[in-house]
């Protein structure tokens, strides 16, 4: 495959084959084989092919020009609120699509043209460029050391220890500002993680309506989200939503519960029966794994799934984990019916709700 084998190719047009590559020393299996012999491309030896490649590159650049003009035309000409329906992609803003498509085409064609140019017409001769030493030469090094020593002597840092020490002290203290700011990560939560807003006698409020819940409202197979009174968005006399106190989201994030009604005979645990009311049971809505709001309730199996990591809790059996990464049962809220006939909490949760934390034990 050396160029000498082809008599049609004029020798002067061909780059020299790398015959200078070192030949392996006799008997050395790991000798550097050197670069392979250079081979010409079609466009190197065939003028027609070279001209064709030139036209291809120019064609790509012309397409890029047209696409840029198309971009400007789309920006000016297409209504930005126009929605079109395209198969597979669905409903799309027409201008968005046109701008992205034309700009992408314009840039791609420039790149593709350049690559095609380089691959077919630019020279493809392999060139070896030796690396130079990383270290500077001896003269430059000597000069740098001399300058440094002179600077140290001029600043008198060796003779004036007071300056030297105070400077080191000042620079050592500066990072303390950053360390002090870390205090903003606190304060420590104290016992906030162990308690929620639920207190003995607090009524359960339906999140959807903002009203107290009567036992008859909860029918079998239904699912109701509830919060303690004072947390649900309440409605003013004109039906307008009343503003909630600052920090309500934090409280709602701990106190959120869901209510379901089970057949009392389906409930496997006596404690769960005692803590509910005629089969109505209230469970924390915060997953014990990493605290996602949990609510995929399968009403036929009484399983409650977390949408984040598929932890599954059995609401008919003390909220025990039946599947998934959660390690603790879902906490149940003890409820009763008060004098007004509404559902109310008998006590706060008896264990911290939500995910485990360091000091929980």
């Amino acid at each position, binding site marked *: *495959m050396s*160029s000498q*084998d*082809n008599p049609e*190719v004029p020798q002067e047009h061909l780059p020299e084959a790398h015959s200078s590559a070192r030949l392996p020393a006799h008997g050395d299996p790991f000798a550097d084989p050197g670069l392979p012999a250079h*081979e*010409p*491309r*079609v466009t*190197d*030896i*065939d003028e027609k092919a070279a001209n064709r490649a030139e036209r291809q590159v120019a064609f790509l650049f012309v397409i890029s020009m047209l696409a840029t003009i198309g971009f400007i035309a789309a920006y000016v000409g297409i209504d930005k609120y126009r*929605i079109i329906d*395209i198969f*597979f*992609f*669905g*409903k*799309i*803003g027409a201008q*968005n*699509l046109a701008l992205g498509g034309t700009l992408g085409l314009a840039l791609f064609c420039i790149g593709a043209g350049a*690559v095609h140019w380089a*691959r*077919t017409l630019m020279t*493809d001769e392999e060139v070896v460029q030796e690396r130079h030493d990383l270290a500077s030469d001896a003269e430059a090094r000597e000069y740098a050391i001399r300058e440094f020593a002179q600077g140290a002597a001029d600043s008198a840092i060796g003779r004036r220890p007071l300056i030297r020490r105070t400077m080191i002290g000042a620079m050592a203290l500066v990072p303390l500002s950053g360390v002090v700011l870390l205090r903003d990560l606190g304060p420590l939560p104290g016992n906030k993680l162990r308690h929620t807003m639920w207190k003995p006698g607090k009524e359960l409020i*339906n*999140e*959807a*309506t903002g009203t107290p*819940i*009567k036992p*008859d*409202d*909860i*029918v079998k*197979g*239904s*699912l*109701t*989200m509830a919060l303690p009174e004072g947390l649900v968005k309440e409605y003013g006399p004109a039906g307008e939503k009343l503003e909630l106190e600052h920090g309500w989201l934090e409280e709602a994030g701990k106190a959120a519960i869901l209510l*379901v009604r089970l057949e009392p005979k389906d409930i496997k645990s006596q404690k769960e029966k005692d803590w509910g009311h005629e089969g109505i049971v209230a469970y924390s809505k915060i997953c014990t794994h990493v605290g996602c*709001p*949990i*609510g*995929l*309730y*399968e*009403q*036929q*199996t009484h*399983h409650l*799934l977390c*949408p984040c990591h*598929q932890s*599954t809790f059995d609401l008919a059996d003390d909220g025990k984990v039946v*599947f998934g990464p959660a390690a603790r049962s879902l906490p149940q809220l003890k409820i009763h019916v008060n004098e007004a006939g509404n559902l109310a909490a008998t006590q706060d949760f008896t264990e911290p709700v939500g995910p485990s934390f360091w000091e929980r034990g």
Partner: protein
Amino acid sequence: MKKLSARRRHPLAAIVVLILALAVTGGLYAAFAPAKKAEADDSASIAVEAGKKLFLSGCSTCHGLDAQGTSDGPSLVGVGAAAVDFQVSTGRMPLQQPGAQAPGKPTVYTAAQTQQLAAYVASLGAGPEIPTANMYVPDGDIVNGAELFRTNCSQCHNFSGEGGALTEGKFAPPLTDVDPKHIYEAMLTGPQNMPSFPDSTMPEQQKKDIVTYVHETTKKEPNPGGLGLGRLGPVSEGLFTWIIALGLLIGSAIWVAARTPKARTK
């Protein structure tokens, strides 16, 4: 007269007369037959009777001869007309084969037959009635509906109504192509493993707001960038970028660095 009598002998005359006679008979029947039905007090019981016949032939195998349920299907006493309308007019019932969940499919019964079945099941025990059009027309409060949807529905159906997976082959279907009436009925009755949201805890207006939100989100909202990818958010978008976009980039890089074809010089 002359012309008329002349045409009496025309070969098509008999056919014209026949068509006229049929039209008159049919027209008279159409005019009087519904009136007769309306006059009868027992039109409802006629529907119940017809529904019972349909039930016995099509549903009783699983739900039992008296709809009390068997080991293969639940009791229908007290599920109400809304449940029947939802299950039958979305094609979920009759069930094609037992499985994790009844999927929606082309309907088997006509609208009229569905009404008769609903009337029969409603006569077995009190249950939610089929909602009227003004209850689910999507003109409620979208903002409130969105909030209610995120609190009560999004955990299973995804916050843009694209649906999601449950356990053991069960799934929450996408809401993208569901009739507002069927969304309302599903909330009212809690089909299969979906919990119900009865009027006592989720009043009519709130349900209407949710229907409005679902309608606006799934029917009107465009995907500005195209290809919503199930609107699942960063996970599906990241997966798309890693596999498709990165794949294209790697392909381009391979093309850039590929060895140029050499001339066959031998």
